[in-house]
């Protein structure tokens, strides 16, 4: 009987010891990313018998039946879903902001207005060399700012494509790791500490993956996870230990398309999708910018051709090129501006053709078109920023809510520490009692 008491106390001490270890581990991981608070599941040992009343009472101590991982699958999937949306919106806004600064900070609008202005000023004296030079130099500046804006758009597009490519690499890396975690999960024993660590790793990887692309997850019976990319009907990225390869293709117009194992996939959230959407918007902005540049080239060159320059020769083209990337000022100098009508003599002060030029420029309205383009892009940025902020705050509260449930509360752990310490000391006291009882039997003489 004394030995029984001793073994019960020993099991109690062991349970308390285990619980203390888990508490210490929780405290140590209070700020670890993706760590889910653990607790010890304890149950009574059945099967022991007592001498007097074998059927009525069962005295065999306690044992640890498993480590409980306090993760809420719903909150975890919410964190992944909202995080994926927020990452998409944030990447799109970032891309659009680059487009906006490419168009706005290069000063295309200002240079167009300056060119308009210098043509207007030329009216005051069409034969004045300095006014003519100013008009031609303003034309050159305008062409160059169009080039710069086009190059900035190219740079923004390259940046987005590079980041999307990096995202694809990350997705493939994470998918590979998930495959390995799945394999080990299939082999790990149920409710072991080893399994809990693997599950933490699994959930952490899923959360990282959801930042890049929209994933649909299915948790299998053996706690391994199957991941679909691009919605529930999309392509399988990870199933069991197998990870498929996500690949990205860049089209000629800079837009992106994706395949998983050569099967076309549409991504609707995640940072990669945001970058792909920003590239579509960037393509639209580039088309408009090219149209504005082409409008300037054709209207000004047509107007030039209908007049004569300062020397009385027929007007030659002022610009070459057909898009923002290749528009260039090709006039030989200020005297090449055909301000006078076709019949006029050299050095004529007749401004009829200058008026034609100004009318042509006013009807092509590059300043108005540029304003419309800037307005379109900036209101897209403004609108998407509101969406992004909303999605970011939703994702933030989902994360806080998961952490509130699954994270470590140091106050709780402090209480647990004291509680399990007391339990341990109580079990030790029971051992002392068992020993005392045994001694009192031996002391009979």
């Amino acid at each position, binding site marked *: 009987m004394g030995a029984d008491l001793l073994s019960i106390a020993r099991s109690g001490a062991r349970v308390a010891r285990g619980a203390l270890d888990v508490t210490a581990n929780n405290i140590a991981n*209070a*700020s670890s990313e993706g760590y889910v*608070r653990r607790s010890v599941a304890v149950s009574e040992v059945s099967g022991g018998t007592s001498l007097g009343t074998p059927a009525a009472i069962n005295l065999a101590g306690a044992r640890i039946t498993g480590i409980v991982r306090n993760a809420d699958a719903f909150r975890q999937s919410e964190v992944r879903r909202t995080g994926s949306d927020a990452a998409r919106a944030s990447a799109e806004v970032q891309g659009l*902001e680059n487009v*906006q*600064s490419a168009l*706005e900070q290069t000063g295309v*609008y*200002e240079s167009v*207005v*300056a060119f*308009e*202005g210098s043509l*207007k*000023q030329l*009216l*005051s*004296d069409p*034969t*004045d060399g300095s006014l003519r030079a100013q008009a031609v130099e303003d034309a050159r500046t305008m062409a160059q700012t169009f080039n710069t804006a086009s190059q900035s758009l190219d740079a923004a597009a390259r940046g987005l494509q590079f980041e999307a490519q990096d995202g694809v690499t990350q997705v493939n890396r994470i998918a590979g790791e998930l495959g390995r975690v799945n394999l080990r999960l299939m082999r790990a024993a149920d409710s072991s500490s080893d399994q809990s660590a693997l599950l933490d790793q699994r959930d952490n990887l899923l959360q990282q993956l959801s930042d890049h692309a929209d994933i649909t997850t299915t948790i299998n019976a053996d706690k391994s996870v199957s991941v679909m990319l691009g919605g529930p009907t999309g392509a399988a990225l990870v199933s069991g230990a197998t990870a498929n390869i996500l690949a990205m293709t860049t089209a000629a117009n800079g837009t992106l398309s994706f395949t998983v194992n050569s099967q076309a996939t549409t991504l609707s959230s995640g940072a990669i999708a945001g970058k792909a959407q920003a590239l579509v918007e960037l393509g639209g902005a580039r088309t408009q910018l090219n149209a504005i540049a082409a409008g300037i080239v054709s209207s000004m060159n047509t107007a030039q051709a209908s007049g004569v320059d300062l020397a009385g020769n027929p007007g030659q083209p002022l610009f070459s090129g057909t898009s923002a990337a290749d528009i260039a000022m090709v006039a030989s100098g200020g005297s090449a501006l055909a301000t006078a009508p076709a019949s006029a003599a050299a*050095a*004529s*002060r*007749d*401004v009829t053709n200058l008026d034609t030029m100004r009318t042509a420029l006013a009807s092509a309205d590059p*300043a108005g078109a540029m*304003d419309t383009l*800037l*307005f379109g*892009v*900036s*209101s897209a*940025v*403004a609108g998407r*920023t509101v969406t992004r902020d909303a999605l970011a705050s939703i994702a*933030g509260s989902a*994360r*806080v*809510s998961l*952490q*509130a*449930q*699954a*994270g*470590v*509360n*140091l*106050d709780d752990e*402090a*209480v647990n*520490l*004291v509680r399990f310490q007391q339990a341990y000391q109580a079990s030790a006291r029971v051992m002392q009692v068992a020993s005392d009882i045994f001694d009192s039997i031996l002391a009979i003489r």
Partner: protein
Amino acid sequence: MTTITTGSTGAFYERSRLDMKDLRTQAESLQAQLSSGSRLTRSSDNPVAASRLRSLSRLETLSQIDTANASRANADLTLADAAMSDMADAVIRAQELATQAASSTLTGEQRSAIATELDQIGQNLLALSNARDSNGHALFGGEASGDAYKLDAAGKAAYVGTAGSEELPLGEGQNVTRSMTGPQFLSFTGKDGSATDVMATVKALSDALKTGGSTAAATSDALANLQTGLDTLTTGQTVVGTRLAWIELTGERRADLSQLRSTEETEIGGTDIATTVSRLQETLTVLEASQASFSRLSGLSLFDQLR
């Protein structure tokens, strides 16, 4: 307090971090508005206002060119006015001489002296009619680049400029003709019904005086024609004066519009300092309060209490 007791420690830190980050971002954006003096740092801060600001700045740029054009027109018209005053003085002197020459008591020498002075006046008139504008072109030559009047083989001044003067835009769709062509204020219909001009009249009188003989008819014709010429010249001067007044009027209007534009710019894009400062103060107060409460709450640890 509830965050600590119900949530995990990590959630408490995360939530506090998010809240304080938001406040700090707000305070920084207010500070940026104050230091730049502009509510908009990028178009996307307010796309409609940014678009309006762009068109306002475009109007302002073009309006400055209108101002430059107006001051050129103003300079040219003032030069034209001065030249025309000088011409009027010359014509009046010619009238005096013609009146003297009309006297029957003058000797031949006196008449030829008058003729010499009239020739001089004729040359002055030619020089004045070829006066240059602020760009160095003929003031009264229309759109011609050289002289307005040239002497022909017979020594008569002939107009070689174009028929009209160029117009300059003054903004808001208004234009002004920057000068007058010579014939517009020098040519008139003479006493005999034929077209003539002041310089021809002076030359005819001088020629008549040099030939000698009876000059009564010639001086009487010349006096009548000079009077008509002076009237035409004065009319021309009135036109120039009206145009100068017109430039002044459009100039005032341009200044008013420019002021309206800058007022609108300030209203749309400028920082309202009083409001922004008080909002900044409010944000900072809230931020300080939440930092203070955060440090008190995070200082609460059960581990400190358990011994």
